[in-house]
C-alpha cells in the first residue's frame, strides 16, 4: 500500500513537471531547462515503476529479464541514431520516434486484448472501448509514421495512389471500425478478431499516408504526434495511470494546435493535406505571360552590392538546407557585419521541412536567434532593405500569391522580398519551384539571378567580399 502511494505521488509530480517543461520549451531562453527537467521526471517515473505491484523484482523472473533487455535495446538504438542523425534529417527521425510511441501504445492494448481473449475478466465495456480506440490510433500512427519516415528519407520516392484510393480507404476504415467494435464489445474477445483488427489498423495507417506528398509530410508527422499522445492517454485510462492520461492528453491537444498552425502557415486546410495531393495535377495548367526577363549577375558584382549595403535580408529556403550552406551564410554574415552592414534572416513559416526547422539549421551554424525573424516581423522591413538575398527559396517569395487569384498558391502568406531595392536570387537552375509554378519575382526589374549550388555561390560571395 505504502509503495503504491509513493508511485502515485511520483506520477503526479511527473505529470506536473511535464507540463512545466512544455511551458518552458515555448521560450528560447528556458527551452533547454524544460527538456532537461522533463527528462529527469521521465527517468524517475520509469525507475519508480519497478516498484509497481504488477512487476516482480525477482531477478529470476523472465518478465523482468526481458523488460530490462527491451529497455536497453530500445534505448541504445534510439540513442545512437539520435546522436548520429544530420540536422537536415531530423524531421523524419522525429517521425520514427513518434511511430515507436504509437506502436508501444498499440502493443499495450494488444497485450490487454490478448489477455481478454484468453479469458481474463474484463474491467468493463468502457475500458475495453478505450483500449480499442487507443489501439487503432496507435497502430495508424505507427505504420503511418514509418511511411512518413521512408518518404522523407528518400527510401520511398513515389507517391503511390491506387485507383479509387479514397474508396478503398473508406472501406478499410469501415472494416477496421467493425472489427474494433467486435473486439470492444466481445466477451470473451475472439482472438482472431484481435488479429484481424490490428492488421487492418496497420494497413489503414499505410494507406492513409502513401498518397500524401513529401511537402505535406511535416503536417502529417505533427498530426501523428498528436494522435500518439491521444493513444497513450487512452491506454493510460486502461491501465489506470494518471501520468499517461495527463501527459498523453496534453500532447494530444498541443499537437493538434501545432498541426493547425502548420497547415495554416502553408495555406493548406488539413482536409486537403489528408485527402488530396499537391502539384499532381494542374502543374502545367497556368502558362500565363510573364513580363520582363531573368537577368544574370556575377558573384563579384553581387558581393559588391551587399558589401556596400546598409541592410541585407537573407531569405533561406529548403534549397539552402539541401546545399548545407548555413555555415557559409554565417561566415558571410560575419564579414558583412564587420563592414557595418545590418544582416537579418527572414524565415517563412514553412521554410525547411517543418516550422522552425530552418531556425534550427541556422542556429546550428551559430546564427543568433534574435537575427532570425519570422514573416510578420520581417515583412515591414523589406522596403528599407538594400538587398534581399534569396537562397534556395522559391514559392515562399512568389508575388503571385498576392496578386493572381488563379494561382494554386494564391492567398499563401509570402515574404515580400520583391519590396527590397535589389533582389539577388541564388538558384541552381532555371526550373520552377516545388509546386511547378513560375516565380514572377525572378523576372522582376529589381531582381538578378546568381546561378549555382547554394554552398558554392555563397563561397564565391564570401571571396568577393574579402577582396574589397
Amino acid at each position, binding site marked *: 500500500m505504502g509503495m503504491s502511494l509513493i508511485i502515485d505521488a511520483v506520477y503526479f509530480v*511527473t505529470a506536473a513537471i511535464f507540463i512545466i517543461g*512544455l511551458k518552458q*520549451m*515555448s*521560450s*528560447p531562453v528556458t*527551452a*533547454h531547462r524544460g*527538456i532537461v527537467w522533463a527528462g529527469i521526471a521521465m527517468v524517475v517515473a*520509469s525507475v519508480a515503476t519497478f516498484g*509497481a505491484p504488477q512487476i516482480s523484482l525477482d531477478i529470476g523472473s523472465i*518478465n523482468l529479464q*526481458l*523488460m530490462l533487455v*527491451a*529497455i536497453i535495446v*530500445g534505448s541504445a538504438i*534510439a*540513442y545512437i541514431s*539520435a546522436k548520429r542523425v544530420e*540536422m537536415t534529417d*531530423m*524531421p523524419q527521425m*522525429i517521425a520514427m*520516434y*513518434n511511430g*515507436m510511441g504509437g*506502436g*508501444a501504445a498499440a*502493443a*499495450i492494448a494488444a*497485450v*490487454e486484448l*490478448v*489477455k481478454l481473449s484468453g479469458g481474463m475478466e474484463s474491467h468493463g465495456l468502457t475500458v475495453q472501448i478505450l483500449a480499442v480506440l487507443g489501439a487503432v490510433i496507435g497502430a495508424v500512427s505507427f505504420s503511418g509514421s514509418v511511411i512518413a519516415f521512408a518518404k522523407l528519407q528518400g527510401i520511398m520516392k513515389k507517391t503511390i495512389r491506387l485507383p479509387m484510393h479514397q474508396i478503398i480507404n473508406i472501406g478499410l476504415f469501415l472494416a477496421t471500425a467493425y472489427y474494433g467494435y467486435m473486439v470492444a464489445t466481445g466477451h470473451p474477445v475472439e482472438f482472431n478478431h484481435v488479429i484481424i483488427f490490428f492488421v487492418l489498423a496497420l494497413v489503414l495507417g499505410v494507406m492513409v499516408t502513401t498518397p500524401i506528398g513529401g511537402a505535406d509530410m511535416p503536417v502529417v*508527422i505533427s498530426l501523428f504526434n498528436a494522435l500518439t*499522445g491521444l493513444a*497513450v492517454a487512452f491506454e*493510460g*485510462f486502461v*491501465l489506470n*495511470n*494518471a501520468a*499517461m*492520461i495527463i*501527459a498523453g*492528453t496534453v*500532447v494530444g*491537444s498541443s*499537437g493538434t494546435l*501545432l498541426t493547425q498552425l*502548420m497547415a495554416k502557415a502553408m495555406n493548406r486546410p488539413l482536409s486537403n493535406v489528408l485527402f488530396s495531393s499537391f502539384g499532381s495535377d494542374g502543374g502545367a495548367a497556368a502558362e500565363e505571360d510573364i513580363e520582363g526577363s531573368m537577368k544574370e549577375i556575377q558573384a563579384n558584382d553581387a558581393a559588391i552590392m551587399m558589401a556596400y549595403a546598409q541592410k541585407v535580408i537573407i531569405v533561406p529556403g529548403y534549397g539552402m538546407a539541401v546545399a548545407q550552406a548555413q555555415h557559409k551564410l554565417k561566415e558571410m554574415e560575419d564579414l558583412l557585419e564587420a563592414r557595418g552592414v545590418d544582416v537579418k534572416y527572414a*524565415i517563412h*513559416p514553412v521554410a525547411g521541412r*517543418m*516550422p522552425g526547422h530552418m531556425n534550427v539549421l541556422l*542556429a546550428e551554424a*551559430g546564427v*543568433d*536567434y534574435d537575427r532570425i525573424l519570422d514573416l510578420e516581423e520581417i515583412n515591414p522591413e523589406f522596403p528599407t532593405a538594400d538587398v534581399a538575398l534569396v537562397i534556395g527559396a522559391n514559392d515562399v517569395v512568389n508575388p503571385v500569391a498576392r496578386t493572381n487569384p488563379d494561382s494554386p498558391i494564391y492567398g499563401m502568406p509570402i515574404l515580400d522580398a520583391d519590396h527590397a531595392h535589389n533582389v539577388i536570387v541564388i538558384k541552381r537552375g532555371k526550373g520552377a519551384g516545388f509546386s511547378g509554378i513560375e516565380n514572377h519575382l525572378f523576372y522582376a526589374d529589381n531582381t538578378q539571378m546568381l546561378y549555382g549550388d547554394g554552398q558554392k555561390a555563397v563561397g564565391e560571395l564570401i571571396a568577393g567580399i574579402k577582396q574589397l
Partner: protein
Amino acid sequence: MIEGLPALYIFMLSAFTGDEVIRRVPVILHTPLMSGSNFVHGIVLVGAMIVMGTAEGALELTIGFIAVAMAAGNAVGGYVATVRMLEMFHTSNKGAQ
C-alpha cells in the same frame, strides 16, 4: 482509482492545458517543441513496463517486449533529438528577458 467522471475531468483539463501551454510559442521553436512533446508521450514506457510485468506466455511476452523496446526508443530518441536541437540556440544578449 480514477474512473468515470473524474477521469473525464482529467481528460478535459489536460486538453485545455496542452492547448494553452503552447499557444504563445514562437515559430522558431515549433520543431523543437514538436520533438519535445514527442518525448513527453514517451511516458508510454511506464505503461509498457506494467503490461510487461503481467505478461504470461510467449505471445504476450513478445508483444510486451516490443512495447517496452519501442517505448524506450520513443523516450530516449525524443530526448536526445530535442536536446540536440535546443543546444543550437544561441543568443547575443544572453540573460536578457
